[in-house]
């Protein structure tokens, strides 16, 4: 029988001194956090830095995870902020947002050249959006959050978020059409 402990139970164990229980939370959320970070930051190295930061900050501040049942949403909010910070630092360093080669290589496994070109086009187009548009689009369509959840997470109003999503869609449509069809 497989017994799965709830997030709240794991959080309570960690707060009770069982540091190893945090590994259960890391394993449970790494993929979701990793996907968001890669989509937002565009390369695996920055994404892994953001995810690692989020987990460690989450651990240090675990007493502030209230109620513990909401650990997943709470941790995700930390990641969203880490991605903003790392993205801003990267912008200051004037680095170009590109797919890291290793990430391309991993993503390419089992894919045809056409698949790879499509994935590259999406990553490129996503990177052309403003941070706010990209964040809104990914939260809405990749993470499938409601506008109310997005508002709570980002601090932006629902109307502003709807506008960002609409502009992101419009921009992506334009960029992808141009990239794919010249």
């Amino acid at each position, binding site marked *: 029988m497989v017994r799965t402990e709830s997030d709240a139970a794991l959080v309570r164990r*960690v*707060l009770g*001194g069982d*540091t190893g229980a*945090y*590994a259960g939370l*890391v*394993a449970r959320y*790494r*993929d979701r956090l*990793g*996907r968001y970070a*890669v*989509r937002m930051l565009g390369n*695996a190295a920055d*994404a*892994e830095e953001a*995810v*690692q930061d989020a*987990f*460690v*900050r989450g*651990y*240090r*501040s*675990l*007493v*502030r*995870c*209230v*109620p513990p*049942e*909401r650990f997943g949403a*709470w941790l*995700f*909010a*930390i990641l*969203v*902020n880490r991605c903003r910070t790392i993205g801003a630092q990267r912008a200051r360093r004037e680095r170009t947002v590109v797919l890291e080669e290793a*990430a391309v290589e*991993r*993503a390419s496994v089992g894919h045809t050249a056409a698949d790879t070109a*499509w*994935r590259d086009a*999406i990553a490129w*187009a*996503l990177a052309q959006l403003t941070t706010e548009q990209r964040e809104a689009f*990914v939260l809405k*369509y*990749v993470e499938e959050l409601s506008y109310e959840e997005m508002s*709570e997470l980002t*601090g932006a109003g629902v109307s502003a978020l*709807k506008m960002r*999503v*609409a502009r992101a*869609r419009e921009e*992506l*449509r334009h960029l*992808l*059409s141009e990239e794919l069809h010249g």
Partner: protein
Amino acid sequence: MDERDPLIDRAIETLRESVRLDPGLDRRVMEEVERAPAPRVGARRWWSAWEWLRRGRTVTVSPLGGLAAAAALAALLLMGRWGAAWVEDTAAPTEVLEAATVQFVLVAPGASMVTVVGDFNDWVATATPLRQASGDGMWTVTVPLPPGRYRYGFLVDGTEWVRDPSTPPALDDDFGRPNSVVTVRG
């Protein structure tokens, strides 16, 4: 706004695919976690507060301040769900307070339970419940606080996090949740 678009739909489908992170990530996280100080659940802050209060001081409530506080309460009631933290001798909600006793207020009609959660109670969800005096939706609690800067928020019915809109947000907060800040001067 969310009209179907085959190109966008295809992009979304691709973006929802899982990504592969370095398999060593979990190990690196746990190594760092093992080195970090353990997250503590304790009463150190409460003990500090008690020690500070035991030294003795007088908090005065002026008639003018009381009237102004009553006016502030009325304003809060008119605004529906609204929260505020202030001290007994302070006329209006403000982020910098100068007394030992801070009153937290949230107007939350329909709520069955409200707690205030923050730095001063180690973010324990149930440590500081607010009470509703007359069923009018106004929840209050008075908390003794030593001088310092405190981040806090309200938890409604154990699930809904509400920032106190009458005080500044904690701009240095990196944890996503919208918190407020109250500063008590020494």
